[in-house]
């Protein structure tokens, strides 16, 4: 049963990923990306990391996709078609990517992974105590650093998007 669900998710993710990077309509490719992200969340559910799947759904599907859709609507006309690279360049890039896939897969399949058979279930409490632990193997310092990074990115985004210099220039020209 889980095997069938995994294969359905895998096929869905690959098909939607390819359509997301080849579709010529901007808004549609964003929605295809949303399906890919939901497929990733489904894989997290399948391997019993419920907390991570919830984070994936809220941050990616709820936050980043909405942000990208807003930027598309602010920047584009909806019906605008995108121009793609030249066909010869597309083919060369596709061949390069196929070679890359081949190299990666031969490396992966020739490496003997020592898989540990288990059915552990990770609870959110374990993740929280590890994330905020300051003893051996605790992650309190990276946690604080990432919170400062998020704050700095937020302030930086506001400052950049406000565009003070532009309004001065507009008053002069109009």
């Amino acid at each position: 049963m889980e095997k069938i669900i995994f294969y359905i998710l895998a096929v869905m993710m690959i098909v939607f990923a390819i359509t997301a990077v080849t579709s010529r309509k901007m808004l549609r490719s964003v929605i295809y990306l949303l399906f890919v992200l939901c497929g990733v969340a489904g894989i997290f559910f399948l391997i019993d990391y419920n907390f991570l799947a919830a984070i994936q759904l809220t941050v990616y599907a709820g936050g980043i996709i909405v942000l990208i859709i807003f930027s598309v609507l602010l920047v584009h006309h909806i019906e605008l078609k995108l121009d793609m690279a030249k066909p010869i360049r597309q083919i060369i890039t596709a061949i390069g990517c196929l070679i890359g896939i081949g190299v990666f897969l031969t490396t992966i399949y020739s490496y003997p992974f020592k898989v540990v058979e288990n059915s552990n279930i990770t609870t959110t409490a374990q993740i929280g105590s590890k994330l905020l632990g300051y003893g051996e193997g605790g992650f309190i310092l990276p946690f604080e650093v990432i919170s400062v990074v998020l704050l700095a990115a937020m302030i930086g985004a506001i400052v950049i998007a406000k565009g003070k210099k532009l309004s001065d220039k507009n008053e002069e020209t109009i």
Partner: protein
Amino acid sequence: MIEGISIYEILTLTTILFFVGVYGFLTRKNLISILISIEMILNASVVNFVVINKYLYPDMLQGVLFSIFIIAVAAAETALAVAIIINLYRQISSVEVKDTEVMKY
């Protein structure tokens, strides 16, 4: 771990996802499309971290924690990139890569 699915199959899936992202990154001419491709690449790496943690070291949590950090960095990066794109559109009325010659504020 998933019943009946080996680690090789999941790593194959993430490899394909990664290279689809690379293909989109190289062929698209639009800044927002490039952002979409970057999200795909980051997601493939997140799945890799989590799967290797679950299959090879099930008693540890390092892969999960690092994937949380990757998601946070990706969110910060997207917010900044969207701000830059909108500001750029106000100045030069275009988000094509070929029109982006100056980013001086």
